[in-house]
């Protein structure tokens, strides 16, 4: 099992690596090299930071087309975490409107409700979509660690499971070989470990 964490220079990937190690994954590779991305069994797209600078980095590493080929044409399983989940959407309005990787029919926008802190941070409950592979064998509502001020919006069925913060928003989505989680499974103890294990097993 070769899991490649796509390294485009953003995000704290130590805990993602630690979680894969805990699960006993034998090949955990942090890389932005074409041959690694091509030979990976699964891809993880991490990310902390802003959408425009992340897209800029992915473009500078010449990763946009290779990722599109692997994910869209070869149906390689990919898990996007936090910003990584957002990057797989069509666009984001964080800062300036920026085009994303477009794997998923969704767009990213900020939390606008001023009654709440615009930063959603802490452990919060995700309501499981009945067909969810990611949340398989977890409780109907399971807690995960969130830290974000932007969220994914979609009118399509992208297998979304929801969380409530001033109204329901998409906590995670899963469509064919593509999975995205707004929260950090690598910082969510047993629930997160189970989710990463489910991704490896069911995608």
């Amino acid at each position, binding site marked *: *099992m070769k899991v490649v964490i796509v390294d485009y220079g953003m995000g704290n990937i*130590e*805990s993602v690596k630690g979680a894969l190690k*805990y699960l006993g994954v034998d090949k955990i590779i942090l890389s932005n090299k074409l041959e690694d991305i091509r030979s990976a*069994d699964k891809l993880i797209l991490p990310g902390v930071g802003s959408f425009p600078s992340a897209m800029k980095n992915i473009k500078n590493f010449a990763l946009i087309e290779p990722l599109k080929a692997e994910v869209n044409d070869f149906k390689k399983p990919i898990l996007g975490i936090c910003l990584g989940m957002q990057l797989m959407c069509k666009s984001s309005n964080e800062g300036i409107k920026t085009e994303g990787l477009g794997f998923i029919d969704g767009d990213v926008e900020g939390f606008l409700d001023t009654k709440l802190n615009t*930063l959603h941070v802490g452990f919060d409950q995700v309501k499981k979509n009945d067909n969810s592979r990611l949340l398989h064998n977890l409780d109907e509502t399971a807690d995960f660690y969130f830290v974000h001020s932007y969220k994914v919006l979609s009118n399509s069925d992208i297998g979304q499971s929801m969380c409530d913060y001033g109204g329901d928003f998409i906590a995670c989505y899963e469509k064919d070989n593509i999975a995205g989680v707004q929260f950090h499974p690598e910082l*969510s103890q*047993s629930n997160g470990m189970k989710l990463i294990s489910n991704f*490896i097993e069911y995608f």
Partner: protein
Amino acid sequence: MLRKRLIFVLIYCDGFFMQSRNFSLQKVGGIEWIEENYDLRNISFALDEIVVLNVSKNKRSEEFYEVLKRIAEDVFIPISAGGGIRSFIDVVRLFESGADKVVINKILYSNPNLVKKIINTYGSQSVIASVDIKDKKVLLDSATLEIDVEPKDYFKNIIRMKVGEILLNSVERDGTGFGYDFEMINSLISSCSVPVIISGGAGNGKHLLEGLLLDNVSAVSTANLFNFVGDSLSVARKEIIKSSGELLVSWDSRLMGRLNNKFQKHIYG
């Protein structure tokens, strides 16, 4: 519903973890002692986050980064690290060593431009402002330096700087086990728009619960190595969950155990 959090603070100095009382430090044990008496992987199921503070006067102690990495490998909850942050490179090193957030104190007052740079680079959510209060005064630099700014105004200033959270500590209650200083806490957090972690004085589960029940408290913390040794944190957590309902998450340590090395046992693909 957004849960509240129980946070354990580890104070580190030149190879030892310390028990602090009114900010005077006493050596307790090294990382081996911590691993023996506080099995981090197990105790993390009683916690939601860990804060590790380096109070060494020897700048750039490489061993602290190693300790931080070791902790980050063991636990799968957010880790915040800080103590003596004076430059941007200090912050970079902490993030590279596995910190999810950094804890800043003196630079909030002495170097607001550095704070701005940290926040612009890593985002507000990555920055915890630590505020130490003694006798209605703000103290900096391990409570050795008093400044002439009203605590309320100080709060306003740092919130304007867009820090993500505030770690509010009572120097008088620190390490006493007498319970949190609710008079001080209430006077500062009633209109605070960022999440507040309260600190200083918790000596048992009841104290932690009292803190969690306050509306504007987002998290309670303890740095008391003596009062929460062994399984007493997990016992306290269970009692809090039993009496408060959904305030804290219940973690499933058995599920976690079952997942360890799961993919080593099978041949895939």
